[in-house]
């Protein structure tokens, strides 16, 4: 067991005994969540008794069950382990199934904060996002639709990485501001060549074997969410084609790609529905057919940002 460290993640301070791939926070900072490393579970472990609030099947043999227990909450991952949260959501204990301890830190920077933020009534999106200056562009869509690949390409062209996978939003008047994520981009096996667009020192490998890029986290003010884009990669299309969705279409598409799902209670679904309706009213949502690579057109970043009305700032063509 290592001594705990403070990490800065999605605008929170997380104090964790397990090392996390996230920027360090001041050791004097008051943690929003303290994570302890618990004992390993037996291979026969099952979800605890209690009220099942959500059960999500990820469709690849993985899943999660959220249970309200007598003493708090349980996030049970049948392939990985369990994270038990106290009723006040201030403390968590992470327990690994045999041989799965290396995977727990990945859950602690992705799935666990996503559920935890939802339980706190926060607004989150399943999205990757990049920023130019004080404006952000988010990508939503199903797994494998190019969210991380686009974020990687745009960061190589000069954009700043806001987050990859979990986007925590902060409502401010009619706008939504974006909290900064881990600074890490996880590349799919067919996109590992994109790591070559960055200095070798930024390339790494995650505990589940994915190629990753560690980008310097931004310390600037939270960028305003300027647009949301649903990428549709196309190897046939030669020109980028963007279509702005109507409000109802936008709300429906946002509802189609939640970060956490499988709710068996009405209240979280109500909150999610209302959030996505407010987002659709406040932020333009585009469906964009994108000529896909590799190779990618060198002017793709400029075309893409221009199509959603963002000024290019320091954006340069792809190498």
């Amino acid at each position, binding site marked *: 067991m290592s001594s705990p460290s403070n990490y800065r993640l999605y605008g929170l301070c997380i104090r964790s005994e397990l090392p996390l791939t996230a920027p360090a926070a001041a050791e004097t900072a008051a943690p929003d969540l303290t994570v302890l490393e618990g004992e390993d579970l037996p291979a026969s472990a099952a979800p605890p008794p209690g009220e099942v609030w959500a059960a999500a099947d990820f469709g690849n043999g993985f899943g999660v069950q959220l249970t309200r227990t007598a003493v708090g909450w349980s996030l049970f991952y049948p392939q990985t382990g369990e994270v038990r949260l106290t009723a006040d959501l201030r403390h968590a204990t992470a327990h690994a199934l045999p041989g799965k301890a290396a995977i727990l830190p990945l859950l602690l920077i992705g799935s666990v904060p996503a559920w935890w933020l939802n339980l706190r009534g926060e607004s989150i999106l399943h999205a990757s996002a990049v920023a130019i200056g004080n404006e952000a562009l988010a990508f939503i869509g199903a797994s494998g639709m190019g969210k991380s690949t686009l974020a990687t390409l745009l960061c190589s062209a000069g954009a700043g990485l806001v987050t990859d996978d979990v986007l925590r939003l902060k409502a401010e008047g009619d706008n939504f501001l974006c909290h900064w994520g881990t600074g890490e981009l996880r590349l799919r096996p067919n996109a590992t060549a994109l790591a070559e667009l960055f200095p070798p020192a930024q390339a790494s490998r995650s505990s589940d074997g994915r190629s990753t890029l560690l980008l310097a986290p931004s310390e600037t003010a939270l960028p305003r969410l300027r647009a949301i884009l649903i990428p549709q990669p196309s190897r046939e299309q030669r020109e980028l084609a963007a279509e702005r969705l*109507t*409000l*109802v279409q936008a*709300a*429906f598409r946002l*509802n189609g790609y939640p970060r956490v799902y499988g709710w068996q209670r*009405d209240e979280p*679904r*109500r909150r999610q*529905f*209302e959030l996505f*309706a407010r987002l*659709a*009213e406040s932020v333009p949502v585009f469906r964009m057919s994108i000529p896909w690579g590799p190779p990618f057109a060198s002017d793709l970043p400029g075309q893409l940002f221009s199509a959603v009305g963002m000024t290019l700032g320091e954006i340069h063509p792809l190498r």
Partner: protein
Amino acid sequence: MPEADPTEIRDDSTIALTPRQISCGLGAEAAILQLESGKYYSLNPVGARVWQLLASPQKVSALLAVLLGEYEVPADRCRADLLALLQKLHAAGLIEVRPA
């Protein structure tokens, strides 16, 4: 003589929203989530107006009178379109039909 179907939608039926849904207006349209099925529905501007009127239970004849006052449409066409919409909403579990 066969018994009347209590869920048949007639001019004197009263229509009420079911409690197991949430909705919101988006521009002139509306989006609805049916909480039992988890399905989403959208309504065009006229459908959204009907939905808005159903904020309190309404007789079909009253709905028809409002629509005929607001839209330039022949009465028989309006009635047919309204009944078709209400039947779809009922099949989706979004409204209850109370016989007269």
